[in-house]
C-alpha cells in the first residue's frame, strides 16, 4: 500500500521511495530539518495514528517512542500516518476538593468531563479564565477517573491562589496530558532513582506507584528536597511505602535544619551523589526547579546514567510542551 501523510488540512500521498519529511515539504508543510539521515533529530514529529516504522524511531528514548515521536526524514510509511498538529483541544473538569497537605502546598482533586488517558508522572495544562498553568499528575488512571495535582501556592500566583480557594464544583479547562517523565516497562530489575524538589514530589510519587503496580522488582530510591524540614509533605504515606517491601528507600534532604532519622541536611545534588555515587545502569527521574533539575541531570549523567535513561521535568512556565529538541525542554509548572 502507498504511504499517505495527514497533518491538519495537509493530505499527501507519498511517491515511491519518498520519505515522510520529503512528502510533508512537497505538500507545503513547514518542518525544520538538517541532516536528513536520522542523526540530528531536528525534524522530530509526533504520529497520532499509523506506523512511522522502527527505523524512524531509532535512537529515541522509550518514553518518546511510546508517545509516537519519530524522525520523518527516516520514515517511509506503508499506510496512512496522521501527524499531530497544534495543541490538543481542551476538555472541562470540575474541582472535587482542595486540601492543604503541606506548607503552601494544596492537593487539588479534579473530575474531568471525559476520562483522561495519561501515564502517571505526565502533566496537564489547567485553564482558568485567561490563565494557563501546567501541573504534574500525582494520580494514576488505575486509581479511577479523578485526577490529583499538588499545587504550590505562590503569594502572587493567580492560578495557584485561585485553586487553593476554589469550592467543590468550580470549573476549569484541562488540556493534555503531555511530558515524557514516566515509567516505561521492559527492564523490571533496573534500579530507579527519583529526585524532586517541592511539589515535584507529585509526579515522582505517581511514578513510584506506577512502577510497583507494573511489577517493577529492582530497587527504587526517592529523594525529596526542600529548603528546610517543614517543606516535606506526604511523609507518612511515603514512609509506609518504604515499610512494605524493603526495596523502596525514601530520603528527605533539607538545605538547612537539624538532621534526624531519614532527613539529610545539605545541598540536594551533593547529598544525592553521596548516597548514590555510581549510577551506571540506573533509570533516573528528576522533577522540580530548573536549576536543581539541570544540575542533577548533568551530575547523574557524569556518574554513569545513560542520557536516554534520564527523564527530567523542570517546572518552568505554562506553555504547552514544544516538540523536544526543537525549542527546548517541556516545562510543567509546580
Amino acid at each position: 500500500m502507498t504511504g499517505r501523510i495527514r497533518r491538519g488540512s495537509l493530505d499527501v500521498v507519498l511517491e515511491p521511495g519518498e520519505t515522510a519529511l520529503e512528502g510533508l515539504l512537497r505538500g507545503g508543510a513547514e518542518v525544520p530539518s538538517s541532516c536528513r539521515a536520522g542523526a540530528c533529530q531536528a525534524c522530530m514529529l509526533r504520529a497520532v495514528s499509523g506506523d512511522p516504522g522502527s527505523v524512524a524511531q531509532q535512537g529515541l528514548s522509550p518514553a518518546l517512542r511510546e508517545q509516537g515521536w519519530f524522525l520523518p526524514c527516516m520514515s517511509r510509511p506503508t499506510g496512512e500516518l496522521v501527524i499531530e498538529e497544534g495543541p490538543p483541544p481542551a476538555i472541562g473538569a470540575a474541582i472535587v476538593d482542595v486540601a492543604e497537605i503541606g506548607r503552601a502546598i494544596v492537593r487539588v482533586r479534579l473530575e474531568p468531563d471525559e476520562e483522561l488517558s495519561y501515564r502517571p508522572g505526565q502533566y496537564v495544562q489547567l485553564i482558568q479564565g485567561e490563565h494557563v498553568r501546567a501541573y504534574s499528575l500525582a494520580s494514576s488512571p488505575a486509581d479511577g477517573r479523578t485526577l490529583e495535582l499538588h499545587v504550590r501556592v505562590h503569594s502572587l500566583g493567580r492560578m495557584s491562589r485561585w485553586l487553593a480557594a476554589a469550592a467543590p464544583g468550580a470549573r476549569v479547562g484541562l488540556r493534555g496530558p503531555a511530558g515524557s517523565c514516566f515509567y516505561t516497562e521492559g527492564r523490571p530489575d533496573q534500579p530507579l532513582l527519583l529526585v524532586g524538589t517541592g511539589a515535584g514530589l507529585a509526579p515522582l510519587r505517581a511514578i513510584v506507584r506506577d512502577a510497583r503496580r507494573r511489577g517493577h522488582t529492582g530497587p527504587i530510591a526517592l529523594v525529596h528536597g526542600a529548603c528546610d524540614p517543614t517543606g516535606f509533605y506526604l511523609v507518612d504515606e511515603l514512609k509506609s511505602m518504604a515499610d512494605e517491601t524493603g526495596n523502596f528507600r525514601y530520603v528527605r534532604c533539607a538545605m538547612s535544619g537539624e538532621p534526624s532519622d531519614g532527613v539529610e541536611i545539605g545541598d540536594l545534588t551533593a547529598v544525592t551523589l553521596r548516597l548514590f555515587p555510581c549510577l551506571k545502569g540506573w533509570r533516573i527521574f528528576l522533577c522540580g526547579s530548573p536549576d536543581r533539575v539541570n544540575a542533577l541531570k548533568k551530575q547523574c549523567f557524569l556518574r554513569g546514567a545513560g542520557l536516554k535513561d534520564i527523564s527530567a521535568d523542570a517546572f518552568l512556565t505554562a506553555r504547552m510542551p514544544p516538540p523536544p529538541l526543537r525549542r527546548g525542554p517541556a516545562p510543567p509548572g509546580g
Partner: protein
Amino acid sequence: MTSLYDELGGAVAIDAAVDIFYRKVMADELLAPFFDDVDMERQAAKQKAFLTMVTGGPAHYTGRDMRRAHAHLVAEGIDDTHFDAVVGHLAGTLKELGVSDDKIARVGALAESVRNDVLGRTPAV
C-alpha cells in the same frame, strides 16, 4: 571500502558511543565550560551527528555547516587545543568500544578534515 560506521553496526552502535563520548567531553575541564548551558538532549543529538559523520556514516554535513555551527564557539575562543581534546576523546571512546587502532586512525583523519571549518579558518592551499 565499507565505512567504519557500517562496520561498527550503524546507528545502534553510534547511539551507544554518544553517551561515552559526550560524558568524556563534559568531564574535561578544558571543554566543560562550553557545555555549561546547553540542552543536553540537543547536544547529544549533535554529538551523534558528529560521530556519524566522522565514522563515514550517512550525515550530510558540509564544511559550511560545520563552520556556521561553531562560529559562536570560535568567538568564545576555541582553538586547536580544544579541537585536539575532542579528537582525543573520540579516539578514547572508540578504543573503549574495542575498535582497532587502524580504524581509529581512519576516524581521526576524517575528523581532521573538518578542523579548519570548525575553527573558522581559511584552509591552507
